[in-house]
């Protein structure tokens, strides 16, 4: 049971990440200018959707076995893709990045995803049914990485191999940075929660005194209430 509980967050987060990738690729497919690229992104999105489906299934198989409280904690809701930061609230990557950077991002992240799946593979065992699925997903990621590399070499022939390494290094660093930031945020959250609660308690005591009767609209013509008021 303990093992399953510790696995839940891994599958939960991975499923989020794969679904977010699918959405990013679908957005790229709709945002591109050439039919050929649209096909590439389309096929990539299709793969990522399939990966997400696999991880959701693995999550679900574990969710059945844990306590109700834990199961409710790991129930997926689509808006959590934004809340958890898998999709930026500023927009899709294709809308916010230059095409070259976007491809570099795909090129690097597919490889990083593959290495993180290696950890999951160790967790479930490579000879299990789940292991076989994960192995096939890893192959997909490698293929996506290769396609991004091919695109790079074709469209940016002047690009030197060391520049690709630099891109990869930069993305890896940024990824590690994001993880560190997230871990720090969680740590800070733990430390500061009592303070937040204290402040909320004080603010709550003040809010108690609020008289909201003014907001009552019974008998009023709603069209005559000031349209400038946020109250």
């Amino acid at each position, binding site marked *: 049971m303990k093992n399953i509980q510790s696995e839940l967050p891994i599958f939960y987060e991975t499923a989020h990440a794969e679904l977010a990738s699918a*959405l990013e690729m*679908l*957005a790229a*497919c*709709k945002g*591109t200018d050439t*039919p*050929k690229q*649209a*096909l590439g992104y*389309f096929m990539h999105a*299709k793969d990522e*959707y*399939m990966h997400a489906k696999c991880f959701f299934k693995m*999550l*679900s198989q574990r*969710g*059945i076995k844990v306590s*109700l409280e834990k*199961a*409710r*904690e790991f*129930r*997926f*809701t*689509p*808006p959590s*893709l*934004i809340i958890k930061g898998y*999709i930026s*609230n500023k*927009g899709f990557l294709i809308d916010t990045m230059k095409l070259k950077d976007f491809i570099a991002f795909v090129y690097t992240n597919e490889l990083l995803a593959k290495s993180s799946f290696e950890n999951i593979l160790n967790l479930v065992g490579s000879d299990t049914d789940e292991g076989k699925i994960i192995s096939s997903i890893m192959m997909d990621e490698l293929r996506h990485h290769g396609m991004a590399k091919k695109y790079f070499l074709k469209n940016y022939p002047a690009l030197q191999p060391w520049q690709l390494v630099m891109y990869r290094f930069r993305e890896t660093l940024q990824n590690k940075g994001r993880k560190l930031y997230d871990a720090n945020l969680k740590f800070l959250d733990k430390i500061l*929660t009592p303070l*937040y*609660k204290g*402040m*909320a*308690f004080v*603010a*709550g*005591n003040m*809010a*108690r005194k*609020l008289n*909201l009767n003014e*907001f*009552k*609209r*019974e*008998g*009023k*013509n*709603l*069209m005559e*209430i000031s*349209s*400038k*008021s*946020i*109250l």
Partner: protein
Amino acid sequence: MNLKEKGKILWKFHLNLSFKVSSNFKMFIGVSGYNHESAAALVDKNGVLIDYYREESLSRIKGDKSFPRRAISKLLKSNNLQIKDIERVAFYERPLSAFLHIVKEASLNMPRSLSLLVHQFRNFNRSSVSCYLDFAKEFKGLETKLIYSDHHLSHSLTALSYSNSKKDVCSVVVDGFGDRSTASISQIVNPSEINELWECPYPVSLGLFYSSITDYLGFSINEGEYKVMGLASFGDSKSKSAKLVRGLMDWDSTSNKIISDMSYFDYHLSTSNSFNSKLEDLLGPARNPFVQLIPGESDFQRCADIARGAQDLTIYLLQKIFTHAHKITRSRRFLFSGGVSMNSASIDSLAQLPFIDEIIIPPSPGDAGCAIGAAFYSYIKSNSYIDLKISKPSLFPSLKEIRNDEFLTEQIIFNQFSILEKDEDDAFLKAAELISAGEVIGTVLSRSETGPRALGNRSLLCDGKNKDAVKKLNTVIKNRSPFRPTAPAMRYKIAKKYYRLRPEIYDCYQSMSATCQCLKDNVSLKFPTTHVDGTARIQIVENNSSLDKLLSILEPMGVEILANSSLNVSGDPNSFDLVDGLMVCSRTKLRYLLTDLGLLKRKT
């Protein structure tokens, strides 16, 4: 003519021209978001809804409630508008009011509610209070044109726009929580005079009660309510569980108020729990969301009975609210909106109330549809009463994609699909032949639907009387819970043969907003689209719509009813454009897709 006179004439011409240009582009935007699904709507100077987008259609994140940046951008881009062309933008609720009501209620229940208070304060900048800043950041200049409507007023105006009569009607709004109340009754004298006569103050809420039961039954809030409604048909109203749920809320006839035992619920105290252990003590343990609910298996009947109790209570309270609405307004014509009005299984009961002549439910009665009401609010606020002309919006309001679908999907179609028929008439004929032979086809035709229900343009269709085809649609393609029914779509003359139609809610049948009973001892009771309780959520197709055209070909072939479900994979929003449709086809076992480019067949 000297130079000065020429200059004067030119200046007059310029003034005339600029006046014409600016008056031509007098547009109004309505926006909803932050709490439930976000959306943006565009109304022109003639009171016509000319465009509408839900954010989830564009972000592909179901129930996307973030600031509708994509939707507003698309409105502006698709209609070739600039910020200066927009006269006013209305936000669908009063943000500070919504924020303070939640904080005030939570503050009365400290320390239990401390986590909710912390959440509210820490996310202040992500709540609707920040909509002004979001406008300023994303669409500089629009923030100066921002005005605010009341949440329930936005609902009322949305519903009013879909009504043929724009005055002397009663508006009933029932939802989870607005910006101050959870249900209201207003008398609409005319679009400029809408008097609120009754309200149900937060936290007592029929909508949040239903969502809590949804949560208890293991379904996601704001998404699984349909499932509870479908599950209820299997339940027994006389069962112990149903009776216990039925007792959780009531109507106080003396004070004309909804009363609720709040000690069973936590939705006003917590961010993560909508109910508490007391509800579990009463009804038994909540359902694990990961365990599939299958008819006949253990715990199914208990869950169905609980759903039945929630449904019975909803119908009972709605009848009480409508009866009270009639009592205080004397009106016989009603507009019904808010999230609870999506409870299509309760509408037939409401139509049977003796004082009802008409109930209008907009096709998107939830918060996403409020953007339409907000857009009309800004339109009404900018015009004098005598100039008001509010046109009834179409069920398919989004503009067609400006981007050339044919160009963008050229390679996808070439690689993954084959075009069976390119000509529109031939494609429809071939699609009809396939349906008649028991196939399931998807559609991506013309404009997409306003609301959450697919009405034929973004649908999965098959012969509604063919059990195998309906089963394939439900289980093989959509992977839906086995207890959820599929809606039948047909023309009016066919519907009359099989179902007990109520003229009071005829419009609701067009937008699939109401269920109806099969006629007594009628063959329709055996249709695979008929639910276990002898009801069906029928769609009477609109004249000249895509489905109307398809049925006109199918009827001579002996197919008069289509099973109609949304073109999506479970958990995703309905398809919006051709790429989405192709993706659904590629991810599922769906083989045929009827599109504006012709009939496509997925390559195996």
